[in-house]
């Protein structure tokens, strides 16, 4: 199972929530599968999805789901201690861990080798960390929403990308419609 198949499966869950989605192919896949005003697509700035989502979760009460990936979390590894030490129970970080840099040609990441992001998150102090198989992502995500407790999910899946068009929406439009959805 690859990331786009996970996204297809969890799209009905994501639809009702604020979603901050990682740069590159993950955002392109989510945009093509189920574009929603409640989706904030990152068009640049690799690594900051988890930070943007945490700021959003701390600033307002609605649940926030961040769709991040192993390569991006490794880029901004300092995010995990910040998340652990600033608990927002409306925050879910879903790390789709396919062990590769999907947007740049599937080069392997260290998370696909010796490094366990699950253990890193736990060592950073995150209290609810769930590692799951790709097939179980939807159930684990639903469970995390119902738990109303800050959760880090590491969904292990195969490397690979779906062919999706580049997002051409203007960034200010993405931001504006997202903020209206936040305030709705």
């Amino acid at each position, binding site marked *: 199972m690859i990331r786009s198949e996970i996204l297809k499966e969890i799209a009905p869950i994501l639809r009702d929530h604020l979603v901050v989605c990682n740069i590159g192919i993950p955002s392109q896949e989510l945009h093509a599968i189920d574009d929603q005003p409640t989706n904030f697509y990152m068009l640049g700035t690799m690594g900051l999805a988890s930070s*943007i989502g945490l700021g959003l979760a701390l600033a307002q009460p609605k649940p926030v789901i961040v769709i991040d990936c192993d390569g991006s979390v490794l880029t901004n590894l300092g995010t995990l201690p910040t998340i652990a030490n600033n608990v927002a129970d409306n925050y879910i970080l879903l790390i789709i861990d396919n062990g590769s840099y999907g947007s740049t040609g599937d080069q392997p990441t260290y998370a696909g080798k010796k490094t366990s992001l699950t253990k890193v998150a736990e060592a950073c102090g995150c209290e609810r960390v769930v590692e799951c198989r790709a097939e179980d992502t939807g159930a684990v995500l639903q469970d995390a929403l119902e738990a109303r407790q800050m959760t880090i999910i590491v969904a292990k899946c195969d490397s690979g990308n779906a062919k999706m068009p580049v997002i051409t929406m203007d960034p200010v439009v993405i931001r504006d419609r997202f903020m209206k959805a936040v305030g709705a």
Partner: protein
Amino acid sequence: MDINQQIVDDFVANDISFVTTVPCKQLAGVIDEIDARPEIFHIPSNKEDEGMGLCAGAFMGGKRPAIIMQNTAIGVTINTLATLIQYYRMPLPMLISYRGELREPVACQVEMAVHTKALLAQMNIPTYHFHTQSDADELDMILKYTFMCNKPVAILTDANFWGGYGE
């Protein structure tokens, strides 16, 4: 009035309620003052680009954010400023300790100081330089300007502004 109190009073008066910091010796007093104010949620970040991500999220969640950092961090935040803060047109006051200026005792700090204003100018970031404490009287206007135009704005505060290093 104490300069740290004055700065944070201006933050509060402009509804800034979410502040992230990466510390600098010169900023210790203002960070303590941020911590003392119940109106402000203070979230330390491990790196300044991470902090800007937090601020972007807080802004979209309805809060007015600010970041407090050292000028050396301009070097690690160029991409974030261009592709997140500026590209999505978000306001971000950046209170920056301007290390490597007059009265600086650490030579290496000068190496980024000589690039600081050039980089900010290259990025078209409105930049203000506080050299004496009376310069801070403009902070309230600078903050209003930042949230009026939805841009990152740099406020450089040098060693002379903070009263030197006890030399």
